[in-house]
């Protein structure tokens, strides 16, 4: 059976139907954390859930290309300087109410339950990051059946302080999972 994922902004809430607009940011700024709830349509748990950043496959309205945007975001995560570091960050510690230490930083890009998308870490399906049990999952990568409770995580984007190219950036967060009906 083909199983779909349901993303919502509240526990058991309505399916999100549109991309998230993270807003307009100046260089050096950080978007507000977006909480995303996740459940699925299967009659049994899904397992092996992982996520990664990929180029936008939908309608692209940016100033460059979807692939260039992805490369730039990964490059922000790779950067080793205070001026150049940034990118897409994920905090999976829902059971701890998304504490500050759950967010990656320049000095600790891989805290417990935190992911900074960068080369070799959530930058492709090969290096997809495991869904943490602290998202509310029953185990690492295992999402239970039903409409509640949902697993949830937070995302935010840090624009590097030295970024000097104006324009829209787009990306997708993709999820891999296994299912036996």
């Amino acid at each position: 059976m083909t199983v779909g994922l349901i993303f919502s902004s509240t526990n058991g809430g309505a399916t999100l139907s549109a991309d998230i607009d993270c807003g307009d940011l100046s260089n050096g700024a950080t978007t507000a954390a977006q909480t995303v709830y996740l459940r699925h349509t299967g009659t049994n748990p899904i397992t092996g859930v992982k996520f990664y950043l990929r180029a936008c496959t939908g309608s692209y309205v940016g100033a460059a290309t979807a692939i260039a945007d992805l490369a730039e975001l990964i490059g922000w995560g790779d950067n080793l300087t205070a001026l150049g570091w940034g990118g897409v960050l994920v905090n999976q510690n829902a059971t701890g109410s998304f504490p500050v230490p759950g967010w990656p930083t320049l000095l600790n890009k891989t805290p417990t339950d935190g992911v900074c998308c960068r080369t070799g870490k959530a930058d492709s399906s090969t290096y997809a990051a495991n869904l943490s049990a602290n998202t509310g999952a029953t185990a690492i990568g295992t999402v239970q059946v039903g409409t509640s409770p949902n697993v949830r995580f937070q995302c935010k984007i840090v624009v590097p302080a030295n970024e000097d190219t104006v324009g829209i950036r787009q990306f997708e967060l993709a999820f891999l999972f296994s299912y036996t009906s």
Partner: protein
Amino acid sequence: MGYWVKHFVDGTKYVGDDNNPQTTWRNSRNEGICYVELVHLDFYLRIDGPGEYWQSDLMEASFPSGTPIVKVRSIQRLIGPGDLYVNREGNAKMIRAQVANSPMNYKTVNAIRPDQIGKWLTLACVPATQLVVYTIRDNKLQ
């Protein structure tokens, strides 16, 4: 989109249809399976031989739609101490494998090594690359 069929030694069968979520693999009969078929798009996979079977799909979905695509669809059979050979034949869209205690008149015959006992004979289709895959894995895919 696809379906799998468990065939039992008593001649009955159980069909799991993608469009019917009530026809589940793990919650339906699993004793006495003698062969399993899986159909996905124009792919066809089949494993013959009484034993323990497993079916699994690797899928991918992106935000926000959550609509999945099937990346890999597989069937597996646990290799037991009495299994001596895997006889198989196939083409770009089909693999049929038979686990048996003797070589059969198939295109390819692989003798099972002692270290492969307890592993899983795996047949899979990969729609994105239009490939079918034959392998022996340490674990069932889940």
